[in-house]
């Protein structure tokens, strides 16, 4: 019992920075995982990755002018992300080009600008910092910001849930009964940017996508309905954060990758053992009914 306490509870009970890291990452999961589920269902899983690259120049601009301060970097990232999301979204909605191509074009341009800006003044250490974040150094400002982002995300999802599901399930139908189709698409892209920006202080621009997509991808193997899928993704996110932080504490590993790799383990386990996974479908032979 004592050993279990020492392994699991003590790190969080004894160290303030671990508590903050836990609170921050749990809050992030609460907002980012349901967003990830919808990204996946809209076949935009890689768009999250693209968006994460896209916010780099904004964050870099904040970093260049104000140093390693969370607010300027966040606002900068938000602006860059919104420009790319709206630009790519608008090109795909109003021209013949599909979203994957327009997104690729916009984020590559954005990423190049970002790398250019970081290289003008910063060293590669700074770049690493922007790219990989530091969950163990979350201050009050950062926690408040993440809390605000989670609140906005959950409230928006609650309000626009029905339209978002309709837009994913049958967009042409939604267009025939309502004008909400395009607004909902852009609100959703905005939420993606918001959650990525919220995550990049803690996990960095690259790894915040991991916390968004991996739990969602894992949850897909367990259920055939959206609501449980979102709940399950959040729970997987929670578990990954706890496991990752403990792993990072005990084995002195960088915390961001530890969290994401924990989610990765859940993902592979889900592929194998999920109710809709490989083993159930291929190896175990079901008895079948007469009709």
């Amino acid at each position: 019992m004592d050993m279990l306490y020492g392994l699991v509870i003590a790190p969080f009970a004894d160290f303030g920075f671990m508590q903050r890291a836990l609170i921050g990452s749990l809050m992030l999961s609460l907002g980012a995982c349901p967003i990830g589920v919808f990204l996946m269902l809209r076949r935009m899983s890689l768009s999250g990755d693209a968006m994460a690259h896209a916010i780099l120049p904004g964050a870099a601009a904040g970093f260049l002018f104000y140093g390693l301060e969370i607010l300027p970097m966040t606002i900068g990232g938000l602006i860059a992300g919104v420009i790319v999301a709206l630009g790519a979204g608008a090109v795909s909605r109003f021209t013949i080009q599909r979203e994957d191509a327009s997104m690729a074009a916009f984020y590559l341009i954005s990423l190049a600008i970002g790398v250019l800006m970081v290289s003008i003044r910063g060293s590669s250490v700074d770049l690493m910092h922007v790219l990989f974040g530091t969950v163990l150094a979350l201050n009050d400002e950062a926690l408040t910001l993440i809390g605000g982002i989670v609140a906005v995300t959950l409230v928006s999802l609650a309000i626009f849930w029905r339209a978002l599901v309709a837009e994913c399930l049958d967009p042409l139908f939604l267009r025939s009964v309502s004008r909400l189709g395009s607004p909902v698409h852009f609100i959703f892209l905005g939420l993606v940017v918001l959650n990525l920006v919220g995550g990049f202080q803690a996990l960095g621009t690259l790894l915040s996508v991991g916390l968004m997509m991996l739990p969602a991808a894992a949850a897909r193997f367990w259920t055939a309905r959206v609501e449980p899928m979102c709940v399950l993704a959040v729970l997987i996110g929670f578990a990954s954060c706890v496991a990752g932080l403990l792993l990072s504490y005990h084995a002195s590993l960088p915390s961001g990758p530890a969290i994401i790799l924990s989610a990765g383990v859940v993902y592979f386990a889900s592929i194998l053992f999920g109710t809709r996974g490989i083993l159930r479908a291929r190896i175990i032979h079901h008895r079948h009914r007469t009709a």
Partner: protein
Amino acid sequence: MTNTCLTFRDLTLGYGSHPAIHHLDGTIRKGSLTAVVGANGSGKSTLMKGIVGVLKPMAGEVIRAPGVRAAYLPQQSELDRSFPARVVDLVSLGLWPRRGLLGRYTKEDRDDVSKALMAVGLGGFEKRPIDTLSGGQLQRTLFARVLLQDADLILLDEPFNAVDAKTVGDLIALIKHWHGEERTIMVVVHDLDLVRQNFPETLLLARQPIAWGETRETLKPDNLLRARRFHEAWEENAPWCEPGEDAHGDDHHGHDHHDHRHGVGPRAA
């Protein structure tokens, strides 16, 4: 005119600069049941999209009588069958006109969903995931959604594609039931025998209306022949349709050209 549901006024719909529906004038009566027939590419689906408003007119307009709500079953649905949803989730989308974005689904709504499924012969299918449905079952599910929309104007674009004979019979019965309820219905159909047996009125299209009226008159051999001669392909260098110049051959419904502005037409209601 109080008994008019739809009015087409010099309506031109199309893609790029090429019209698929060219200068359509006319009206659809309230409570009428009209079959829309014509060759591939004759503008049938385009007309449907124009009426619903998902395609903006290049010129002219579609005027809906005030308060008329439309339900639309497209030919090529953008439905994502891999989306994790159950039959009941898909059909419940039909509650949108009633409940909108935020309205709660009541017990009564859920009963109506069950009744709609029952009406298309899919009672008890509520909990089935949509990716396990056959093509015909999915089509009937979409009919149930139209049923639930409780619309005054029902637009069905080739609803009988890939549907077996028994199901076609069921769906026709449902359409006739709607007709009995004084709803206005337009259906794109390919099977002319089906049209002759079940549809009082027919619109024969070949980019412009070849004939429009009572089914037996419209589907006369000489009309069908004229429709068949219709040239499907666009001509990249087709002359511009200018005011005062008659660029299109046999136009059934006369129209004037003085208000002819391609590309700046007002939006459909």
